[in-house]
Protein backbone atom coordinates (compact mmCIF):
# COMPACT_ATOMS: atom_id res chain seq x y z
CA UNK A 1 0.00 0.00 0.00
CA UNK A 2 1.40 3.35 -0.98
CA UNK A 3 1.67 5.96 1.71
CA UNK A 4 1.57 8.85 -0.71
CA UNK A 5 -1.50 11.07 -0.82
CA UNK A 6 -0.90 12.62 -4.19
CA UNK A 7 -3.83 14.69 -5.45
CA UNK A 8 -6.33 12.74 -7.53
CA UNK A 9 -6.82 13.35 -11.22
CA UNK A 10 -7.89 16.94 -11.79
CA UNK A 11 -11.61 16.95 -12.51
CA UNK A 12 -12.96 18.53 -15.65
CA UNK A 13 -14.77 21.79 -15.01
CA UNK A 14 -17.58 22.27 -17.49
CA UNK A 15 -18.54 25.95 -17.32
CA UNK A 16 -17.65 28.04 -14.33
CA UNK A 17 -19.97 30.90 -13.48
CA UNK A 18 -19.49 34.08 -11.50
CA UNK A 19 -21.29 34.70 -8.24
CA UNK A 20 -22.28 38.04 -6.75
CA UNK A 21 -23.92 38.61 -3.39
CA UNK A 22 -25.28 42.09 -2.67
CA UNK A 23 -26.69 43.39 0.60
CA UNK A 24 -27.63 39.88 1.74
CA UNK A 25 -29.55 39.79 5.03
CA UNK A 26 -31.00 36.85 6.92
CA UNK A 27 -33.26 36.90 9.96
CA UNK A 28 -34.06 33.89 12.10
CA UNK A 29 -37.23 35.11 13.78
CA UNK A 30 -36.33 38.37 15.51
CA UNK A 31 -32.60 37.68 15.30
CA UNK A 32 -30.66 39.14 12.37
CA UNK A 33 -27.72 36.83 11.62
CA UNK A 34 -26.53 38.42 8.37
CA UNK A 35 -26.30 42.22 8.26
CA UNK A 36 -25.94 43.00 4.57
CA UNK A 37 -23.21 40.82 3.03
CA UNK A 38 -21.49 41.92 -0.18
CA UNK A 39 -19.30 39.43 -2.02
CA UNK A 40 -18.00 39.18 -5.56
CA UNK A 41 -16.68 35.84 -6.77
CA UNK A 42 -15.42 36.12 -10.36
CA UNK A 43 -15.82 33.06 -12.59
CA UNK A 44 -13.12 30.45 -12.08
CA UNK A 45 -11.83 31.84 -8.77
CA UNK A 46 -11.89 30.53 -5.23
CA UNK A 47 -13.10 32.53 -2.24
CA UNK A 48 -12.50 31.27 1.27
CA UNK A 49 -14.70 32.52 4.09
CA UNK A 50 -13.06 32.39 7.50
CA UNK A 51 -14.22 33.58 10.90
CA UNK A 52 -15.25 32.44 14.38
CA UNK A 53 -18.13 29.98 14.74
CA UNK A 54 -21.53 31.62 14.76
CA UNK A 55 -20.32 34.44 12.53
CA UNK A 56 -22.76 33.52 9.74
CA UNK A 57 -20.29 31.89 7.30
CA UNK A 58 -22.40 28.80 6.70
CA UNK A 59 -25.59 30.85 6.52
CA UNK A 60 -24.12 32.83 3.62
CA UNK A 61 -23.48 29.59 1.72
CA UNK A 62 -26.92 28.23 2.55
CA UNK A 63 -28.51 31.44 1.32
CA UNK A 64 -26.69 31.16 -2.01
CA UNK A 65 -28.44 27.89 -2.90
CA UNK A 66 -31.49 28.82 -0.86
CA UNK A 67 -31.37 26.03 1.69
CA UNK A 68 -32.14 29.12 3.75
CA UNK A 69 -34.27 31.74 2.03
CA UNK A 70 -32.52 35.12 2.34
CA UNK A 71 -34.53 37.83 4.07
CA UNK A 72 -33.17 40.54 1.82
CA UNK A 73 -30.53 41.38 -0.76
CA UNK A 74 -29.55 39.84 -4.05
CA UNK A 75 -27.74 36.73 -5.24
CA UNK A 76 -26.61 36.85 -8.86
CA UNK A 77 -25.33 33.84 -10.78
CA UNK A 78 -23.60 34.92 -13.98
CA UNK A 79 -25.31 38.26 -13.60
CA UNK A 80 -28.86 36.97 -13.30
CA UNK A 81 -30.93 37.06 -10.12
CA UNK A 82 -31.60 33.62 -8.68
CA UNK A 83 -33.69 34.45 -5.63
CA UNK A 84 -36.99 34.87 -7.43
CA UNK A 85 -37.07 31.89 -9.78
CA UNK A 86 -37.36 28.19 -8.99
CA UNK A 87 -35.04 27.00 -6.23
CA UNK A 88 -34.68 23.62 -7.94
CA UNK A 89 -33.41 25.30 -11.10
CA UNK A 90 -30.90 27.32 -9.03
CA UNK A 91 -29.61 24.25 -7.24
CA UNK A 92 -28.89 22.52 -10.53
CA UNK A 93 -26.33 25.25 -11.18
CA UNK A 94 -24.78 25.30 -7.69
CA UNK A 95 -23.17 22.27 -6.05
CA UNK A 96 -22.77 21.97 -2.30
CA UNK A 97 -20.53 19.82 -0.13
CA UNK A 98 -21.48 19.41 3.54
CA UNK A 99 -19.46 18.99 6.71
CA UNK A 100 -21.12 15.64 7.41
CA UNK A 101 -21.03 14.41 3.79
CA UNK A 102 -24.75 13.52 3.78
CA UNK A 103 -24.31 10.56 1.47
CA UNK A 104 -27.43 8.42 1.10
CA UNK A 105 -26.62 5.41 3.33
CA UNK A 106 -29.27 3.17 1.75
CA UNK A 107 -27.74 3.46 -1.72
CA UNK A 108 -24.43 2.28 -3.12
CA UNK A 109 -21.72 4.83 -3.84
CA UNK A 110 -22.58 4.67 -7.53
CA UNK A 111 -26.31 5.08 -6.87
CA UNK A 112 -25.57 8.09 -4.67
CA UNK A 113 -24.53 9.81 -7.88
CA UNK A 114 -26.82 8.06 -10.35
CA UNK A 115 -30.03 8.72 -8.39
CA UNK A 116 -29.90 12.55 -8.31
CA UNK A 117 -28.35 12.66 -11.76
CA UNK A 118 -31.25 10.75 -13.29
CA UNK A 119 -33.93 12.68 -11.40
CA UNK A 120 -32.46 16.09 -12.16
CA UNK A 121 -31.06 15.64 -15.64
CA UNK A 122 -33.65 13.12 -16.84
CA UNK A 123 -31.06 10.90 -18.51
CA UNK A 124 -30.94 7.14 -18.96
CA UNK A 125 -29.46 4.85 -16.34
CA UNK A 126 -26.58 3.89 -18.64
CA UNK A 127 -25.66 7.53 -19.30
CA UNK A 128 -25.90 8.41 -15.62
CA UNK A 129 -23.72 5.45 -14.66
CA UNK A 130 -21.10 6.45 -17.21
CA UNK A 131 -20.95 9.97 -15.78
CA UNK A 132 -20.92 8.66 -12.21
CA UNK A 133 -18.06 6.23 -12.86
CA UNK A 134 -16.07 8.97 -14.56
CA UNK A 135 -16.52 11.30 -11.57
CA UNK A 136 -15.65 8.53 -9.12
CA UNK A 137 -12.53 7.79 -11.10
CA UNK A 138 -11.51 11.44 -10.85
CA UNK A 139 -11.67 11.34 -7.06
CA UNK A 140 -9.77 8.03 -7.04
CA UNK A 141 -12.67 5.89 -5.87
CA UNK A 142 -13.76 4.06 -9.02
CA UNK A 143 -13.38 0.70 -7.32
CA UNK A 144 -15.73 1.69 -4.49
CA UNK A 145 -18.68 2.19 -6.87
CA UNK A 146 -20.66 -0.76 -5.59
CA UNK A 147 -20.15 -0.53 -1.83
CA UNK A 148 -22.33 1.25 0.69
CA UNK A 149 -21.11 4.57 2.06
CA UNK A 150 -20.97 3.03 5.56
CA UNK A 151 -17.92 1.01 4.56
CA UNK A 152 -15.93 4.07 3.48
CA UNK A 153 -13.63 6.20 5.61
CA UNK A 154 -14.59 9.82 6.27
CA UNK A 155 -12.15 11.05 3.65
CA UNK A 156 -13.51 8.66 1.05
CA UNK A 157 -17.07 9.67 1.90
CA UNK A 158 -16.28 13.32 1.38
CA UNK A 159 -14.59 12.58 -1.92
CA UNK A 160 -17.70 10.71 -3.04
CA UNK A 161 -19.82 13.68 -1.93
CA UNK A 162 -17.62 15.97 -4.03
CA UNK A 163 -17.88 13.61 -7.00
CA UNK A 164 -21.66 13.56 -6.55
CA UNK A 165 -21.90 17.34 -6.56
CA UNK A 166 -19.57 17.63 -9.57
CA UNK A 167 -21.55 15.04 -11.53
CA UNK A 168 -24.47 17.46 -11.67
CA UNK A 169 -22.28 19.84 -13.70
CA UNK A 170 -22.48 22.87 -11.41
CA UNK A 171 -21.22 26.34 -12.34
CA UNK A 172 -20.33 27.13 -8.73
CA UNK A 173 -19.30 24.83 -5.88
CA UNK A 174 -19.98 25.61 -2.22
CA UNK A 175 -17.99 23.84 0.50
CA UNK A 176 -19.40 24.10 4.01
CA UNK A 177 -16.57 23.12 6.37
CA UNK A 178 -15.91 20.10 4.17
CA UNK A 179 -12.98 18.84 6.26
CA UNK A 180 -14.15 19.75 9.78
CA UNK A 181 -15.61 16.32 10.50
CA UNK A 182 -12.59 14.39 9.24
CA UNK A 183 -9.83 12.76 11.21
CA UNK A 184 -6.68 14.86 10.84
CA UNK A 185 -4.90 12.32 8.66
CA UNK A 186 -7.78 12.28 6.16
CA UNK A 187 -8.02 16.06 5.74
CA UNK A 188 -5.09 16.23 3.34
CA UNK A 189 -6.60 14.07 0.61
CA UNK A 190 -9.83 16.07 0.53
CA UNK A 191 -8.01 19.41 0.54
CA UNK A 192 -5.79 18.17 -2.30
CA UNK A 193 -8.90 17.35 -4.31
CA UNK A 194 -10.36 20.78 -3.60
CA UNK A 195 -7.11 22.45 -4.62
CA UNK A 196 -7.12 20.48 -7.86
CA UNK A 197 -10.65 21.63 -8.50
CA UNK A 198 -9.74 25.26 -7.84
CA UNK A 199 -6.73 24.99 -10.10
CA UNK A 200 -8.92 23.50 -12.83
CA UNK A 201 -10.94 26.70 -12.82
CA UNK A 202 -14.05 25.87 -10.81
CA UNK A 203 -15.76 28.82 -9.15
CA UNK A 204 -15.67 27.95 -5.46
CA UNK A 205 -16.83 29.43 -2.19
CA UNK A 206 -15.22 27.59 0.70
CA UNK A 207 -16.13 28.03 4.34
CA UNK A 208 -13.15 26.63 6.18
CA UNK A 209 -11.08 26.52 9.32
CA UNK A 210 -8.05 25.38 7.32
CA UNK A 211 -6.01 28.58 7.20
CA UNK A 212 -3.28 26.83 5.23
CA UNK A 213 -5.76 25.95 2.51
CA UNK A 214 -7.16 29.48 2.45
CA UNK A 215 -3.68 30.92 2.07
CA UNK A 216 -2.61 28.55 -0.70
CA UNK A 217 -5.75 27.97 -2.72
CA UNK A 218 -7.83 31.12 -2.37
CA UNK A 219 -7.86 34.04 -4.76
CA UNK A 220 -9.81 35.97 -2.16
CA UNK A 221 -10.23 35.53 1.57
CA UNK A 222 -13.21 36.93 3.41
CA UNK A 223 -13.20 37.35 7.18
CA UNK A 224 -16.67 37.38 8.74
CA UNK A 225 -17.64 38.14 12.31
CA UNK A 226 -21.10 38.59 13.84
CA UNK A 227 -22.92 38.63 10.53
CA UNK A 228 -20.80 41.16 8.65
CA UNK A 229 -17.79 40.99 6.33
CA UNK A 230 -15.03 42.59 8.38
CA UNK A 231 -12.21 42.28 5.87
CA UNK A 232 -11.79 40.87 2.38
CA UNK A 233 -8.86 40.69 0.03
CA UNK A 234 -6.06 38.50 -1.32
CA UNK A 235 -4.80 35.91 1.17
CA UNK A 236 -1.41 37.57 1.57
CA UNK A 237 -3.07 40.83 2.58
CA UNK A 238 -5.39 39.28 5.16
CA UNK A 239 -2.95 36.86 6.72
CA UNK A 240 0.21 38.99 6.63
CA UNK A 241 -1.20 42.47 7.06
CA UNK A 242 -4.58 42.31 8.82
CA UNK A 243 -5.99 45.79 9.27
CA UNK A 244 -8.73 45.27 11.86
CA UNK A 245 -8.33 44.29 15.50
CA UNK A 246 -11.02 41.67 15.14
CA UNK A 247 -9.10 39.84 12.41
CA UNK A 248 -5.83 40.19 14.31
CA UNK A 249 -7.44 38.65 17.39
CA UNK A 250 -8.98 35.85 15.33
CA UNK A 251 -5.72 35.01 13.57
CA UNK A 252 -3.86 35.06 16.87
CA UNK A 253 -6.30 32.44 18.14
CA UNK A 254 -6.23 30.08 15.15
CA UNK A 255 -2.66 30.31 13.86
Amino acid sequence: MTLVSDPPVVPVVPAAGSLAIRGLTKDFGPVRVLHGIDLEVPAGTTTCIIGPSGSGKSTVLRCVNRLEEPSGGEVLLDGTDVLHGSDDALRRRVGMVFQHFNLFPHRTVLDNIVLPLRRVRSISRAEAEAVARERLDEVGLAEKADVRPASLSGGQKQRVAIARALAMGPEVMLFDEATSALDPELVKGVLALMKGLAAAGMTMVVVTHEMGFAREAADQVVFMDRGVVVEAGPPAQLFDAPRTDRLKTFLAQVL
Partner: protein
Amino acid sequence: MNVSDALANIGRSFLDGQAMLRTLPDMLAYGVWNTLLLAVCATAVGVVLGLVLAVMGTSRHRLPRVLSRVYTDVFRGLPAILTILLIGTGLAPLFNLFSRGNPYPLGILALSLIASAYIGEIFRAGILAVDRGQLEASRALGMTHRDSMRLVVIPQGIRQVLPSLVNQFIAIVKDSSLVYFLGLITSQRELFRIGQDAAITNGNLSPLVLAGLFYLVITVPLTHLVNVIDRRMREGRPLTRRGARSGSVGPGPGPGPDGGRVSGDGGGSAGGASPVAASADPVLAAGPASSARASSSPVAVPAGAAPARSTLSEGAAL
Protein backbone atom coordinates in the same frame (compact mmCIF):
# COMPACT_ATOMS: atom_id res chain seq x y z
CA MET B 1 -59.76 -30.20 50.37
CA ASN B 2 -56.09 -29.51 50.71
CA VAL B 3 -53.56 -27.60 48.68
CA SER B 4 -52.41 -30.54 46.58
CA ASP B 5 -56.00 -31.32 45.53
CA ALA B 6 -56.48 -27.73 44.49
CA LEU B 7 -53.25 -27.83 42.48
CA ALA B 8 -54.32 -31.08 40.84
CA ASN B 9 -57.62 -29.48 39.85
CA ILE B 10 -55.88 -26.50 38.34
CA GLY B 11 -53.49 -28.83 36.54
CA ARG B 12 -56.38 -30.79 35.02
CA SER B 13 -58.16 -27.64 34.05
CA PHE B 14 -55.14 -26.16 32.27
CA LEU B 15 -53.23 -29.17 31.02
CA ASP B 16 -55.78 -31.80 30.07
CA GLY B 17 -54.01 -33.62 27.25
CA GLN B 18 -57.20 -35.35 26.07
CA ALA B 19 -59.08 -32.09 25.65
CA MET B 20 -56.12 -30.54 23.85
CA LEU B 21 -55.80 -33.49 21.51
CA ARG B 22 -59.48 -33.29 20.58
CA THR B 23 -59.05 -29.62 19.65
CA LEU B 24 -55.75 -29.94 17.82
CA PRO B 25 -57.14 -31.07 14.40
CA ASP B 26 -59.41 -28.03 14.10
CA MET B 27 -56.64 -25.69 15.07
CA LEU B 28 -54.26 -27.18 12.52
CA ALA B 29 -56.89 -27.56 9.80
CA TYR B 30 -58.09 -23.96 9.79
CA GLY B 31 -57.54 -22.15 13.12
CA VAL B 32 -53.90 -21.22 12.50
CA TRP B 33 -54.52 -20.34 8.88
CA ASN B 34 -57.51 -18.15 9.65
CA THR B 35 -55.55 -16.28 12.31
CA LEU B 36 -52.63 -15.78 9.91
CA LEU B 37 -54.97 -14.80 7.08
CA LEU B 38 -56.59 -12.12 9.22
CA ALA B 39 -53.27 -10.82 10.54
CA VAL B 40 -51.37 -10.82 7.25
CA CYS B 41 -54.18 -9.16 5.28
CA ALA B 42 -54.81 -6.59 8.00
CA THR B 43 -51.08 -5.81 8.20
CA ALA B 44 -50.75 -5.48 4.43
CA VAL B 45 -53.64 -3.02 4.21
CA GLY B 46 -52.50 -1.34 7.42
CA VAL B 47 -48.98 -0.77 6.06
CA VAL B 48 -50.34 0.88 2.92
CA LEU B 49 -52.76 3.09 4.88
CA GLY B 50 -50.08 3.76 7.49
CA LEU B 51 -47.64 4.93 4.84
CA VAL B 52 -50.24 7.32 3.46
CA LEU B 53 -50.92 8.62 6.98
CA ALA B 54 -47.19 9.06 7.65
CA VAL B 55 -46.62 10.95 4.41
CA MET B 56 -49.60 13.17 5.26
CA GLY B 57 -48.36 13.55 8.82
CA THR B 58 -44.94 14.76 7.70
CA SER B 59 -46.29 17.01 4.96
CA ARG B 60 -45.19 20.62 4.63
CA HIS B 61 -48.87 21.58 4.42
CA ARG B 62 -51.19 21.91 7.36
CA LEU B 63 -54.36 20.25 6.09
CA PRO B 64 -52.94 16.77 5.47
CA ARG B 65 -51.14 16.94 8.80
CA VAL B 66 -54.38 17.74 10.65
CA LEU B 67 -56.34 15.02 8.83
CA SER B 68 -53.69 12.45 9.63
CA ARG B 69 -53.63 13.57 13.26
CA VAL B 70 -57.41 13.30 13.69
CA TYR B 71 -57.55 9.87 12.07
CA THR B 72 -54.71 8.61 14.22
CA ASP B 73 -56.20 10.01 17.42
CA VAL B 74 -59.57 8.40 16.71
CA PHE B 75 -58.45 4.92 15.75
CA ARG B 76 -55.70 4.73 18.31
CA GLY B 77 -57.97 6.05 21.02
CA LEU B 78 -60.90 3.67 20.58
CA PRO B 79 -60.94 0.16 22.08
CA ALA B 80 -60.24 -2.35 19.30
CA ILE B 81 -63.38 -4.32 20.11
CA LEU B 82 -65.54 -1.23 19.66
CA THR B 83 -64.06 -0.40 16.26
CA ILE B 84 -64.40 -4.00 15.10
CA LEU B 85 -68.04 -4.18 16.15
CA LEU B 86 -68.94 -0.78 14.68
CA ILE B 87 -67.22 -1.42 11.35
CA GLY B 88 -68.00 -5.15 11.19
CA THR B 89 -71.71 -4.84 11.84
CA GLY B 90 -72.32 -1.22 10.84
CA LEU B 91 -71.01 -1.55 7.30
CA ALA B 92 -72.29 -5.11 6.91
CA PRO B 93 -75.42 -4.26 4.88
CA LEU B 94 -73.23 -2.67 2.23
CA PHE B 95 -70.42 -5.21 2.20
CA ASN B 96 -72.59 -8.29 2.40
CA LEU B 97 -73.64 -7.62 -1.16
CA PHE B 98 -70.11 -8.62 -2.18
CA SER B 99 -68.99 -11.02 0.50
CA ARG B 100 -72.17 -13.06 0.95
CA GLY B 101 -72.20 -12.71 4.69
CA ASN B 102 -68.54 -13.59 5.23
CA PRO B 103 -67.38 -11.36 8.11
CA TYR B 104 -63.71 -11.54 7.07
CA PRO B 105 -63.54 -8.57 4.69
CA LEU B 106 -65.03 -6.22 7.27
CA GLY B 107 -63.05 -7.81 10.08
CA ILE B 108 -59.85 -7.29 8.11
CA LEU B 109 -60.90 -3.73 7.27
CA ALA B 110 -61.52 -2.93 10.93
CA LEU B 111 -58.21 -4.47 11.99
CA SER B 112 -56.46 -2.52 9.19
CA LEU B 113 -57.97 0.77 10.25
CA ILE B 114 -56.76 0.25 13.80
CA ALA B 115 -53.35 -1.04 12.69
CA SER B 116 -52.82 1.82 10.24
CA ALA B 117 -53.14 4.37 13.05
CA TYR B 118 -50.25 2.72 14.89
CA ILE B 119 -48.23 1.91 11.76
CA GLY B 120 -48.68 5.48 10.56
CA GLU B 121 -47.16 6.75 13.80
CA ILE B 122 -44.31 4.26 13.52
CA PHE B 123 -43.52 5.38 9.96
CA ARG B 124 -43.88 9.03 10.89
CA ALA B 125 -41.41 8.66 13.75
CA GLY B 126 -39.02 6.87 11.40
CA ILE B 127 -39.27 9.56 8.74
CA LEU B 128 -38.77 12.33 11.29
CA ALA B 129 -35.74 10.51 12.70
CA VAL B 130 -33.91 10.64 9.37
CA ASP B 131 -31.06 13.15 9.62
CA ARG B 132 -32.05 16.53 8.25
CA GLY B 133 -28.85 16.55 6.20
CA GLN B 134 -30.34 13.86 3.96
CA LEU B 135 -33.16 16.11 2.79
CA GLU B 136 -30.79 19.08 2.51
CA ALA B 137 -28.28 17.10 0.45
CA SER B 138 -30.86 15.84 -2.01
CA ARG B 139 -32.44 19.28 -2.28
CA ALA B 140 -29.00 20.85 -2.76
CA LEU B 141 -28.42 18.43 -5.64
CA GLY B 142 -31.49 19.87 -7.34
CA MET B 143 -34.01 17.14 -6.57
CA THR B 144 -37.54 18.29 -5.86
CA HIS B 145 -38.95 18.07 -2.34
CA ARG B 146 -41.24 15.28 -3.50
CA ASP B 147 -38.45 13.22 -5.06
CA SER B 148 -36.22 13.83 -2.06
CA MET B 149 -38.86 12.53 0.33
CA ARG B 150 -39.87 9.61 -1.89
CA LEU B 151 -36.41 8.37 -2.86
CA VAL B 152 -34.15 9.45 -0.02
CA VAL B 153 -35.91 10.24 3.24
CA ILE B 154 -38.90 7.86 3.37
CA PRO B 155 -36.96 4.70 2.39
CA GLN B 156 -34.49 5.37 5.19
CA GLY B 157 -37.26 6.15 7.66
CA ILE B 158 -39.01 2.87 6.89
CA ARG B 159 -35.81 0.88 7.23
CA GLN B 160 -35.20 2.27 10.69
CA VAL B 161 -38.59 1.17 11.97
CA LEU B 162 -38.69 -2.39 10.61
CA PRO B 163 -38.38 -3.81 14.17
CA SER B 164 -41.33 -1.73 15.38
CA LEU B 165 -43.30 -2.93 12.38
CA VAL B 166 -42.76 -6.57 13.32
CA ASN B 167 -43.93 -5.70 16.83
CA GLN B 168 -47.06 -4.21 15.32
CA PHE B 169 -47.67 -7.40 13.34
CA ILE B 170 -47.51 -9.34 16.60
CA ALA B 171 -50.13 -7.01 18.08
CA ILE B 172 -52.35 -7.60 15.04
CA VAL B 173 -51.99 -11.38 15.36
CA LYS B 174 -53.35 -11.08 18.88
CA ASP B 175 -56.08 -8.56 18.00
CA SER B 176 -57.31 -10.80 15.19
CA SER B 177 -58.99 -12.93 17.88
CA LEU B 178 -61.53 -10.13 18.37
CA VAL B 179 -63.06 -10.84 14.96
CA TYR B 180 -65.02 -13.65 16.62
CA PHE B 181 -67.44 -10.97 17.83
CA LEU B 182 -68.68 -10.64 14.27
CA GLY B 183 -69.99 -14.22 14.31
CA LEU B 184 -68.01 -16.95 12.57
CA ILE B 185 -69.26 -20.18 11.07
CA THR B 186 -67.28 -23.33 11.91
CA SER B 187 -64.67 -23.15 9.16
CA GLN B 188 -64.16 -19.42 9.67
CA ARG B 189 -63.12 -19.78 13.28
CA GLU B 190 -59.61 -18.72 14.21
CA LEU B 191 -57.41 -19.99 17.06
CA PHE B 192 -59.12 -18.21 19.92
CA ARG B 193 -62.67 -19.07 18.89
CA ILE B 194 -61.82 -22.74 18.39
CA GLY B 195 -60.18 -22.78 21.80
CA GLN B 196 -63.14 -21.07 23.43
CA ASP B 197 -65.73 -23.37 21.83
CA ALA B 198 -63.76 -26.44 22.85
CA ALA B 199 -63.27 -25.08 26.35
CA ILE B 200 -67.05 -24.86 26.75
CA THR B 201 -67.83 -28.30 25.33
CA ASN B 202 -65.07 -29.94 27.38
CA GLY B 203 -65.77 -27.94 30.51
CA ASN B 204 -62.04 -27.42 30.65
CA LEU B 205 -59.63 -24.55 29.89
CA SER B 206 -56.96 -26.69 28.20
CA PRO B 207 -58.09 -25.93 24.62
CA LEU B 208 -57.56 -22.23 25.38
CA VAL B 209 -54.11 -23.04 26.69
CA LEU B 210 -53.46 -24.86 23.43
CA ALA B 211 -54.67 -21.81 21.51
CA GLY B 212 -52.27 -19.75 23.60
CA LEU B 213 -49.43 -22.08 22.66
CA PHE B 214 -50.27 -21.61 18.99
CA TYR B 215 -50.18 -17.83 19.42
CA LEU B 216 -46.78 -18.13 21.04
CA VAL B 217 -45.51 -20.36 18.22
CA ILE B 218 -46.42 -17.55 15.84
CA THR B 219 -45.25 -14.58 17.88
CA VAL B 220 -42.13 -15.71 19.75
CA PRO B 221 -40.04 -16.38 16.61
CA LEU B 222 -41.12 -12.96 15.38
CA THR B 223 -39.87 -11.23 18.51
CA HIS B 224 -36.54 -12.91 17.91
CA LEU B 225 -36.63 -11.83 14.28
CA VAL B 226 -37.01 -8.28 15.60
CA ASN B 227 -33.85 -8.66 17.61
CA VAL B 228 -31.95 -10.04 14.63
CA ILE B 229 -33.07 -7.19 12.36
CA ASP B 230 -32.32 -4.69 15.09
CA ARG B 231 -28.82 -5.98 15.72
CA ARG B 232 -28.05 -6.25 12.05
CA MET B 233 -29.13 -2.69 11.45
CA ARG B 234 -27.12 -1.36 14.35
CA GLU B 235 -24.05 -3.12 12.98
CA GLY B 236 -24.78 -1.54 9.63
CA ARG B 237 -24.94 -4.77 7.72
CA PRO B 238 -26.90 -4.68 4.49
CA LEU B 239 -30.49 -5.86 4.79
CA THR B 240 -30.97 -6.66 1.17
CA ARG B 241 -29.46 -8.92 -1.41
CA ARG B 242 -28.53 -5.81 -3.33
CA GLY B 243 -26.23 -4.68 -0.56
CA ALA B 244 -24.58 -8.06 -0.26
CA ARG B 245 -23.38 -7.77 -3.81
CA SER B 246 -21.30 -4.79 -2.80
CA GLY B 247 -18.23 -6.65 -1.66
CA SER B 248 -17.94 -9.03 -4.56
CA VAL B 249 -18.04 -6.74 -7.56
CA GLY B 250 -15.11 -4.60 -8.48
CA PRO B 251 -15.70 -3.04 -11.88
CA GLY B 252 -12.85 -0.58 -11.64
CA PRO B 253 -11.47 0.50 -15.00
CA GLY B 254 -8.24 -1.38 -14.54
CA PRO B 255 -5.39 -1.56 -12.09
CA GLY B 256 -5.18 2.22 -11.81
CA PRO B 257 -6.13 4.26 -8.74
CA ASP B 258 -7.47 2.37 -5.76
CA GLY B 259 -8.70 3.19 -2.28
CA GLY B 260 -5.29 2.56 -0.79
CA ARG B 261 -3.78 5.48 -2.61
CA VAL B 262 -4.42 8.01 0.10
CA SER B 263 -2.75 6.39 3.03
CA GLY B 264 -5.10 7.24 5.85
CA ASP B 265 -8.17 6.37 3.86
CA GLY B 266 -7.14 2.85 2.95
CA GLY B 267 -6.08 2.18 6.52
CA GLY B 268 -9.44 3.32 7.80
CA SER B 269 -11.51 0.89 5.84
CA ALA B 270 -9.22 -2.05 6.43
CA GLY B 271 -9.32 -1.34 10.16
CA GLY B 272 -12.92 -2.46 10.47
CA ALA B 273 -15.16 0.35 9.27
CA SER B 274 -16.32 -2.03 6.58
CA PRO B 275 -18.03 -5.26 7.60
CA VAL B 276 -16.80 -6.82 4.40
CA ALA B 277 -13.20 -5.94 5.01
CA ALA B 278 -13.45 -6.84 8.69
CA SER B 279 -14.79 -10.29 8.03
CA ALA B 280 -12.09 -10.92 5.48
CA ASP B 281 -9.26 -9.83 7.72
CA PRO B 282 -8.81 -13.03 9.79
CA VAL B 283 -8.87 -14.96 6.57
CA LEU B 284 -6.10 -12.84 5.19
CA ALA B 285 -4.02 -13.44 8.26
CA ALA B 286 -4.43 -17.20 7.80
CA GLY B 287 -4.38 -17.27 4.03
CA PRO B 288 -1.25 -17.84 1.97
CA ALA B 289 -1.24 -14.53 0.10
CA SER B 290 -1.84 -11.87 2.72
CA SER B 291 -1.29 -8.76 0.67
CA ALA B 292 -2.94 -5.57 1.77
CA ARG B 293 -4.59 -5.21 -1.63
CA ALA B 294 -6.83 -8.17 -1.01
CA SER B 295 -8.56 -6.49 1.91
CA SER B 296 -10.86 -4.72 -0.49
CA SER B 297 -11.67 -7.79 -2.58
CA PRO B 298 -13.09 -10.65 -0.51
CA VAL B 299 -13.55 -12.62 -3.71
CA ALA B 300 -9.93 -13.57 -3.38
CA VAL B 301 -10.54 -15.32 -0.06
CA PRO B 302 -9.29 -18.91 -0.17
CA ALA B 303 -12.00 -21.56 -0.10
CA GLY B 304 -10.74 -23.24 3.05
CA ALA B 305 -11.69 -20.24 5.13
CA ALA B 306 -15.44 -20.65 4.96
CA PRO B 307 -16.32 -19.97 8.64
CA ALA B 308 -14.82 -16.50 8.57
CA ARG B 309 -17.12 -15.58 5.74
CA SER B 310 -20.30 -16.45 7.59
CA THR B 311 -21.14 -12.81 8.22
CA LEU B 312 -21.14 -12.25 4.50
CA SER B 313 -23.52 -15.07 3.70
CA GLU B 314 -25.80 -13.98 6.53
CA GLY B 315 -25.98 -10.60 4.93
CA ALA B 316 -26.95 -12.21 1.66
CA ALA B 317 -29.58 -14.41 3.21
CA LEU B 318 -31.87 -11.66 4.40
